[in-house]
């Protein structure tokens, strides 16, 4: 990292390469018509499918947050019309969990406990069954790169929203980069640990990719403003 006096900005030794992604949706070949079937299927489905219905939910709600933050809660509340289970699953923040297996255990526990209190198993009568899906994520390098915070925020403001998803959600959960790529680069390459910390602590619960993009840009702008003021 060096400081470019003319640009009034820190310059990274290694640029940030913006990568987006496209989610191809694959049917997992399993469905559930009642909450017991949902429970049994969640116990057995591949983790990719669990990821689809919890984390990559955001990729399908770029601009508008649905009434519930994951597919399981949405299905229970809207299709089965069991708002109690919808609420119990809705409060679950998938980013509170170390890994997908831990998340699976918690979801199974919630549904199991819920069913144990009921005399009959809630099932779909008028609504749609739950169809399990999984994602095939295609990485798409955008060819865009940033060396300074100004360049970073300017590019982030205009790229496809999937870039936000890829460098945060996909990087953290599937690629094991716990801080997320944005925070990691800002800390290591721009030596801005406070900004990195704020970005890595952004809550993703009940939000949209557009909203996350705006919050990151706002945080960058605050730093840039401070730097300009000297």
């Amino acid at each position: 990292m060096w400081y470019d006096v003319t640009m009034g900005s820190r310059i990274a030794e290694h640029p940030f390469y913006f990568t987006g992604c496209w989610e191809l949706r694959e049917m997992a070949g399993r469905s559930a018509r009642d909450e017991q079937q949902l429970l049994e299927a969640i116990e057995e489905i591949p983790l990719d499918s669990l990821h689809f219905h919890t984390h990559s939910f955001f990729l399908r709600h770029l601009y508008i947050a649905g009434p519930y933050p994951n597919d399981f809660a949405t299905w229970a509340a809207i299709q089965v019309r069991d708002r109690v289970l919808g609420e119990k699953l809705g409060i679950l923040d998938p980013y509170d969990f170390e890994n997908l297996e831990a998340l699976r255990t918690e979801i199974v526990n919630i549904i199991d406990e819920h069913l144990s209190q009921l005399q009959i198993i809630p099932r779909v009568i008028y609504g749609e069954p739950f169809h399990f899906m999984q994602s095939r994520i295609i990485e798409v390098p955008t060819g865009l790169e940033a060396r300074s915070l100004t360049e970073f925020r300017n590019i982030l403001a205009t790229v496809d929203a999937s870039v936000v998803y890829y460098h945060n959600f996909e990087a953290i959960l599937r690629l094991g980069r716990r801080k997320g790529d944005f925070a990691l680069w800002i800390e290591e390459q721009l030596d801005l640990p406070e900004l990195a910390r704020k970005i890595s602590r952004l809550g993703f619960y009940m939000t949209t990719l557009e909203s996350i993009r705006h919050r990151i840009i706002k945080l960058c702008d605050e730093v840039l403003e401070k730097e300009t003021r000297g």
Partner: protein
Amino acid sequence: MNRLDDYRNVVPKGTIDFLKCLAEQVKGKKILHINSTKLGGGVAEMLRSQLLLLQDLGVDAQWQIISGTEAFFNITKSFHNALQGQEQHISQQMLQAYLEVNRENAQRLSFDADYVVIHDPQPAALIESRSTQGKWVWRCHIDISRPQWKVWSFLKQFVVDYDAAIFSLPRFAQRLPIPQFLIFPSIDPLSDKNRDLSPQEQSQILRRLNVPADKPILLQVSRFDRFKDPLGVIQAYRLVKKHHDVQLVLAGGGATDDPEGETVLSEVREAARDDPDIHILLLPPDANLEINALQRAATIVLQKSLREGFGLTVAEAMWKGKPVIGGSAGGITVQLVYGVTGFAVNSVEGAAFRIHYLLDNPEMMTKIGEDAKEYVRQNFLITRHLGDWLALMSYLGRTN
């Protein structure tokens, strides 16, 4: 015809450049679409728009059609109905004739492409003639969730030989040993049915259709078909009319291959009787500008289907910023996020309740309309569909 860069101002920011990056992964590859008609129908309409745009993205996109006798198309029409759940008599002779026409077409057509996409059941048996080169994909546009078993098991013997299948909704998927992908259909925001209209254009069209602008308009655009429940729409309108002075427009054409259409239309006319605020419009199949103007003039759009494929008329109305109340059927529930981008309802009373609610809460109508438009922008525009094709090509290109 519109070119890719024409879409820059209507699609989400960054989309066009992103599609160009995605297309780099399959640049120069040849994709060949094969279906049974170049004229009429949603599939041909979608392919026509998509082909040019795929070419703009550097993909060698081609389109061929199969030819067949009238008897062949009668057989495939029966297939179509049987796969959608209607009881049909399909004889061994009919199955044989289907295979013969497919084999004749296989002799005539060239399958020299990296990706061969076969649309719907009519050309599905062409897979018998595949060479080792190229990935073959079966794209099913129809609802085969409750097929007549004999026809599906006949067709399935061909489908299993494809490298992948694509369906429009998860519930249309079948038990198959090949990957099955979900690709939603899409609308073209720059087509006559969806492009912006000037106020003058819009009012001229409404005058021509004799639809007055003096009362809020409830609109349903659909064929006069029992599954679209036009009689239920009239009942819902009557419940609302007690509280709000609205008018109802039922606009649609009769399908020439639907003998029941005339009966349903008579029932609708009888139900409307002499109510001057119910307008029944019979539109020709190419009345795209008329549908566009009606949707833009509507206060609330209904699609109270009892059974539905995907129901793209919902996305069309949402794209015009209209609150939509739809039947809880097929793809309507995918488009209408309850209370956010519209309402999916299950009864006449449910429809009436939500119309009443929206008319009493105009600010809610505005908010739902705005969110509905954005939801379509993100999920149901042609550019998303192009991305799905490119991603599928890229994915299949990497698999053995």
